[in-house]
């Protein structure tokens, strides 16, 4: 029996969305209704659409700094204005309901009031009037939640990635992808095209009805809990992937990076809102949960080479698997 030592669990482990249902991992159209609570060996996750954790302040500061430095991380084609307002008027009430002690949203026609005590923010704004917000609307909603945001317009029997605020991408680039079709966005991913996973996902998404909410998880690994692993900053983080293999601190430096992705049909604009919330946990933290330690070790050892290459983990994944399964 694998037992978990409560005392060594970190708070982030208790809420960590451990993604593996088996000892091996393959791509699938793994969508499920959201929100819904999922128990794990360390606790559980998923009962809220927007998860606020102790990193809230620091991650939002990091996002702001990235956007100041590199404006290409935020993009919006001109027809996406209503979808952005739809995002704001959909997410703020959700936050106010889930975090009533620190957040409050009220609305009278187009006039809205928003209070966010975590950020010391108390504002009145008018839907459709960008000048009533402290910053451009897309950046504003990106300053209230830790999730990266993408918006897809539906037309010509396809979905188009036409707006987003993406500062914590797992090796892709919004500046490069904006304006592309959903199928083109997934062009570089191995296997999914032969296996019809992406066409199936697109059909599913195009059928989503207003207000419907689903989610899926995706995962990779990252050295040193670095959120910004976008293609633009590759020179800063790429070399770590080689160097970490021989580091005695491997287990502290290597993190399992899990994205909880929400797929929401916005009620008025009809756009698809795609939220990507990144959670990270080090191998050292994972080892406090023996069932996770073993399962991740087996998944990493078994993962086919093309998938490991695509995820960018092939240099260190066997070292990681050995550490996890060795002790």
């Amino acid at each position, binding site marked *: 029996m694998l037992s978990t030592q409560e005392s060594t669990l970190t708070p982030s482990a208790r809420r960590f969305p451990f993604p593996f249902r088996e000892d091996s991992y393959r791509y699938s*159209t793994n*969508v499920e209704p959201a929100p819904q609570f999922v128990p794990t060996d360390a606790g559980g996750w998923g009962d809220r659409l927007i998860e606020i954790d102790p990193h809230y302040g620091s991650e939002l500061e990091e996002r702001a700094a990235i956007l100041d430095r590199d404006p290409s991380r935020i993009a919006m084609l001109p027809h996406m*204005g209503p979808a952005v307002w739809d995002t704001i008027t959909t997410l703020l009430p959700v936050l106010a309901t889930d975090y009533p002690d620190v957040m409050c949203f009220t609305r009278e026609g187009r006039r809205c009031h928003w209070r966010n005590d975590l950020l010391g923010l108390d504002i009145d704004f008018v839907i459709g009037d960008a000048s009533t917000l402290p910053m451009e609307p897309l950046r504003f909603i990106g300053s209230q939640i830790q999730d990266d945001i993408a918006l897809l317009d539906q037309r010509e029997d396809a979905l188009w990635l036409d707006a987003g605020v993406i500062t914590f991408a797992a090796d892709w680039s919004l500046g490069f992808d904006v304006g592309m079709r959903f199928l083109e966005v997934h062009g570089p991913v191995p296997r999914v095209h032969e296996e019809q996973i992406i066409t199936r996902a697109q059909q*599913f998404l195009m059928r989503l*009805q207003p207000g419907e909410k*689903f989610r899926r998880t995706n995962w990779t690994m990252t050295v040193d809990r670095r959120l910004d692993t976008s293609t633009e900053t590759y020179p800063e983080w790429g070399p770590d992937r080689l160097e970490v293999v021989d580091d005695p601190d491997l287990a502290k430096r290597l993190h399992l990076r899990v994205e909880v992705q929400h797929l929401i049909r916005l009620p008025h604009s009809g756009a698809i809102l795609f939220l990507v919330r990144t959670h990270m946990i080090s191998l050292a933290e994972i080892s406090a949960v023996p069932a996770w330690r073993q399962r991740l070790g087996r998944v990493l050892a078994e993962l086919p080479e093309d998938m490991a290459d695509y995820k960018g983990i092939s240099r260190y994944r066997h070292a990681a698997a050995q550490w996890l399964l060795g002790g």
Partner: protein
Amino acid sequence: MTATAEASAPALHNALELVLADVTDRTPSIRSFTFRDPAGNELPPYVPGSHIIVHSGDKANAYSLTGSGVLTAEYTISVLRVDNGGGGSAALHQLAPGARLSVSRPRSAFAPVATARHHLLIAAGIGITPMLSHMRAATEWGHSASLLYAYRQGEGAHLDDVRELCGERLLECTDRSSFLAALGVRLGEQPLGTHLYVCGPQGFMDTVLSAAAVAGWPPSRLHSEPFGTADLDPGQPFSVTLGRSGAVVDVPSGTSLLKALEDSGHKVPFMCRQGVCGECILPVLRGTPEHRDLYLSEAEKTANNSIMCCVSRSRDAGLEIDL
């Protein structure tokens, strides 16, 4: 615009229970109904051009919402009375304020195209209702739109509304020849990037769509109101035999096979309940599934040896699964 959803209606999924707050006659045969939440809460916002399914008696009908969809203190529909129609419009016309009704959440199947540079709206008769919604939304968001409205003298519903809303952007026609002339002009002069939306009787929509095709409009810029495509229909009742125990499980209309199996104490793995993830696959021993999923390939569907039980049903009485 109305269309019959079901002759005898299944229970609506996740319906709203609303109170009829107001009834207004628009023409001798068209009446507007305004619904509110009994507790005074806001109703879900909706995409312009959306419809709701309204239950009255044992009938259910789809009706277009006439608001912009942004401010949704109430839902308003306009209903043409069809005395011998299957959908219950006559029953609706009997209702008085205060009545309680079961109403579906708004479904979007006739949305404006966000990238359009201009929206050309064309309506006949009761087909004005989704156009009113489109026009209101376009006005609220400052998008370019114009309306061509054909109606019989004395029977134009919502004339005051559209005149006030559109001003110069409205062209009214009360006979067929002036409509066809106006249509020809509009189809010829529309700038690149215009999208056309049409709603009205089927013959009218066919006329407009074929004239547009002749005038060189690509199909991707033509949109007509199709009702009922967004919903998976509830399906016929059937029963299934479980190969291992011989037990028989009944699956009523509107209930999925997965739900029926769960309700009778059988655990089946699942995730999406939408026919896409692949988790709920079950081997078929006998019978012919009615495949309604997106997961199985065409070849697998033809082979008929598996079924995605969250959405698929049975074509015949003899379905047997390995469970």
